[in-house]
């Protein structure tokens, strides 16, 4: 045990940051021991409760699959349709909150105190933000969503835009422009300001309460202004356990679903058999690479992989841009920005909407999903963002990624839409998104319409797989930190455990069935977390006010 004289109470602040006076010592609830050669430093009881309840839920899903599927398959859509207005309003609150912070005097507070300097340069920082938060989504939905909104025959057009296709699939030229415009605006709405504001709020709270106020880097710390010292007891244990839960199941179910998607892509391009064996091999492969990354640590593993991935993704973007006609696409991008600016307010209005298919089936679903991921992504962003001012932080976490996502959607989605317009009958995109719904093939269908499809599709699959790796490794680090009571220097075997555990849970659910139902469960946690995030906004304001007094 550490020498008592080193772990005195917190010294009086010396002007750089306002440390919260609390008797809680980071690591005081931890069990530090050794099992054979492996060191352990785990938070009691969060580590044990999280681990056991995850095993319990997996066992439930495996032993009562129909019941689990029925229950969660009912719960999730009920929540997103009953509470759609709540999700939309909350997300709007987060966006306005972030934008106001940028221009307010609170924006000059620096995360880490007045003398802190950024831990990472811009390229590495951005790469990690994207890879953790959104990489897989952009790959999977980049073509699917714009193409879907453009031509959906299932009555869920955003804001009731008129379809540009007849029943037989012929083009209706006068509806094309409006449909394209709305498709890009509605997609951008889901990938620009709102989701990044959700992440920014959580990340800001965690960074503020750890780096400026000295509380452990764990979700419970954001609640100190609200719960006070109770946050170290069972309130905090529940909060942290829920966060671990949502993170691990979110990652494991995405991993399982992602393996299915990658397998479908491999089958489409190379004819590799589409079965569980291949998918299990994919999961094992992804987990192994993630393990190597986690062993090499944040700078040597996660950051390096994220940067490589961003470069390859950027190359793919540039290729598609030029292969599809840079001039057209770039003007589409500018038009898309304009369309987003015009439509964002009607799209984020939760009342009096008739396009409930879109609003509930897509928007509310997305918001619940982003919010259930926000503990993980927010904590990871916080981990890598020390040294930035609040203004710089929000600008770089909110504005710049939004622009990049809109550009991405314009390039990938715009190309897909152009493909559908140019040749509706022969378009692979239309065949796989509108005529029959095979969303996992949408990216490859779009790439087919461009030259060098074999190479770009392979790059696409590799990108998808590596984005899963970067989610898995950053997620393992986050879970490891939370279950070690906020310590970032727990022994390496612990993070190896969580990384492996995630892969095993994914494999178990894949083989035994239950991916869909547990993914629905994760998204259902989005509702309570929304309340949590609203409270966090208030906690941030209180925290920033104290910083400004120093």
């Amino acid at each position, binding site marked *: 045990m550490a020498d008592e004289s080193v772990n005195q109470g*917190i010294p009086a602040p010396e002007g750089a940051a306002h440390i919260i006076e609390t008797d809680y010592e980071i690591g005081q609830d931890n069990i530090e021991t050794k099992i054979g050669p492996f060191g352990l430093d785990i938070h009691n009881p969060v580590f044990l409760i999280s681990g056991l309840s995850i095993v319990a839920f997996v066992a439930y899903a495996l032993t009562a699959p129909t019941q689990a599927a029925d229950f969660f398959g009912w719960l999730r859509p009920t929540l997103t349709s009953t509470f759609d207005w709540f999700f939309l309003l909350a997300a709007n609150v987060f966006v306005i909150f972030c934008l106001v912070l940028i221009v307010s005097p609170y924006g000059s507070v620096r995360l880490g105190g007045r003398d802190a300097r950024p831990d990472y340069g811009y390229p590495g920082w951005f790469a990690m933000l994207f890879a953790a938060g959104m990489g897989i989504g952009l790959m999977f939905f980049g073509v699917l969503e714009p193409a879907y909104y453009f031509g959906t025959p299932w009555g869920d057009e955003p804001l009731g835009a008129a379809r540009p296709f007849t029943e037989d699939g012929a083009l209706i030229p006068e509806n094309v422009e409006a449909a394209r415009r709305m498709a890009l605006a509605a997609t951008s709405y889901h990938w620009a300001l709102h989701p990044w504001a959700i992440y920014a709020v959580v990340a800001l709270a965690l960074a503020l309460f750890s780096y400026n106020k000295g509380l452990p880097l764990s979700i419970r710390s954001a609640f100190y202004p609200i719960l006070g010292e109770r946050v170290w007891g069972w309130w905090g244990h529940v909060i942290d356990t829920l966060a671990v839960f949502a993170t691990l199941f979110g990652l494991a179910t995405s991993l399982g679903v992602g393996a299915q998607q990658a397998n479908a892509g491999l089958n489409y391009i190379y004819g590799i058999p589409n079965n569980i064996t291949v998918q299990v091999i994919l999961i094992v492969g992804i987990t192994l690479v993630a393990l190597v990354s986690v062993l090499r640590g944040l700078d040597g593993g996660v950051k390096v992989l994220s940067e490589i991935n961003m470069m390859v993704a950027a190359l793919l973007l540039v290729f598609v841009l030029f292969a599809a006609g840079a001039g057209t696409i770039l003007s589409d991008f500018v038009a898309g920005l304009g369309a987003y600016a015009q439509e964002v307010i009607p799209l984020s209005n939760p009342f009096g909407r008739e396009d409930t298919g879109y609003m509930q089936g897509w928007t509310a679903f997305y918001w619940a999903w982003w919010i259930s991921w926000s503990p993980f992504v927010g904590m990871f962003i916080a981990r890598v963002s020390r040294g930035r001012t609040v203004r710089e932080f929000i600008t770089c976490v909110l504005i710049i990624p939004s622009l990049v996502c809109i550009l991405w959607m314009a390039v990938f989605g715009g190309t897909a839409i152009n493909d559908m317009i140019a040749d509706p009958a022969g378009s692979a995109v239309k065949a796989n998104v509108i005529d029959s719904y095979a969303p996992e093939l949408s990216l490859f269908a779009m790439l087919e319409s461009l030259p060098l499809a074999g190479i770009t599709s392979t790059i696409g699959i590799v990108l998808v797989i590596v984005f899963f790796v970067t989610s898995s490794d950053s997620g393992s680090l986050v879970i490891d930190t939370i279950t070690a009571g906020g310590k*970032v220097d727990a022994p390496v075997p612990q993070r190896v455990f969580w990384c492996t555990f995630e892969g095993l849970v994914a494999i178990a659910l894949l083989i035994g069935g239950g991916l869909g139902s547990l993914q629905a469960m994760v998204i259902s946690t989005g509702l309570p977390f929304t309340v949590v995030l609203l409270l966090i906004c208030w906690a941030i304001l209180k925290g920033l006010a104290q910083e400004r007094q120093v």
Partner: protein
Amino acid sequence: MFQKIMCPVDLAHRDTLDRALTCAADLGRHYGCPVVYVGVTSTAPGKVAHTPEEFGRKLEAFVEDEARRRGVSGEAHVAIAHDPTTEVDDALMRAIADTGADLVVMASHVPNVLDYIWPSNGGKLAEHAKCSVMVVRG
């Protein structure tokens, strides 16, 4: 023979350091050179300190105490690693360059089977550092 001795210290596990600290201090007195005590910390709050600045203050207090007790001239140096568990070696290598040390005296565990998979901190430093390294075991 040596101009500056560097002694990495883990403030969270001070009870394991005694042999290395004694060694470093003895060598410092023998060669008449200062001992730089290097602590590696992350930027996130941890068991020892809530901020790197606070860590620096605790390290300085420790160094003052050590130097007085052992009769050497001591300095404190804080090395920051973003992910301390995996990046200690790199942080210590940087610290060697920053402090200009030409001898490192550090504690390490007795080698076990795990060292074949990933080597201990002392092992890596002994292999890659440009200056002399003394690994004190036990």
